[in-house]
């Protein structure tokens, strides 16, 4: 099941610079996309989301961009901070058959390391 793919297993960024995490998807039924951050031995923590009817959503240092024609989304973190170092997961939700109870399909995750 490769419906949601994060092709970069890791990303290393200097503090203060921009971090760009990418995610591609194949299922055109996905209508809602989410980014989660995860520290070791903890559950995923919701960061930001975007509906398929939008192309951008911003929340403080975090911005998510959605390109539906390319089936691609990205998370921008500006400026990056050492505390942002974690695994970032892209997730998507599909409306199947007109109903959905909110099942999320996750990507493999990208390990972000922000160096001081």
């Amino acid at each position, binding site marked *: 099941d490769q419906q949601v793919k994060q092709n970069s297993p890791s990303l290393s960024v200097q503090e203060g610079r921009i971090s760009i995490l990418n995610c591609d998807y194949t299922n055109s039924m996905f209508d*809602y996309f*989410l980014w*989660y951050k995860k520290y070791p*031995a*903890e*559950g*995923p*923590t*919701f*960061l930001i*989301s975007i*509906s398929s009817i939008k192309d951008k959503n911003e929340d403080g240092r975090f911005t998510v961009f959605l390109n539906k024609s390319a089936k691609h989304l990205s998370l921008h973190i500006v400026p990056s901070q050492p505390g942002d170092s974690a695994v970032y*997961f892209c*997730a998507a*939700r599909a*409306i199947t058959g007109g*109903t*959905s*109870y*909110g*099942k*999320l*399909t*996750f*990507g*493999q*995750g990208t390990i972000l390391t922000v160096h001081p």
Partner: protein
Amino acid sequence: EPEVTQTPSHQVTQMGQEVILRCVPISNHLYFYWYRQILGQKVEFLVSFYNNEISEKSEIFDDQFSVERPDGSNFTLKIRSTKLEDSAMYFCASSEGGAWFNYGYTFGSGTRLTVV
């Protein structure tokens, strides 16, 4: 901030034994989920639960698995006869709404299940 609470944080069990993983979702949430993450792999959907019944389940969620909401607060995942490949981190999640609710899902910190 409201939390999803999972117990125990770590459980070791012998192959063939039954295990029950427990979760207390956020009190006003209506949709409940179990996900799992095998070490080094993606977070995978197992099951969603709404209105006291399973609303959606994955291929992983076979007859060995069951879920229950025995009272107004707990949500449990039972594995009847554990196999080595059931070793994973199991995450409970809850949300106020299902498909038509655009909001982040809140995850618990997980139960690490080790089958020996």
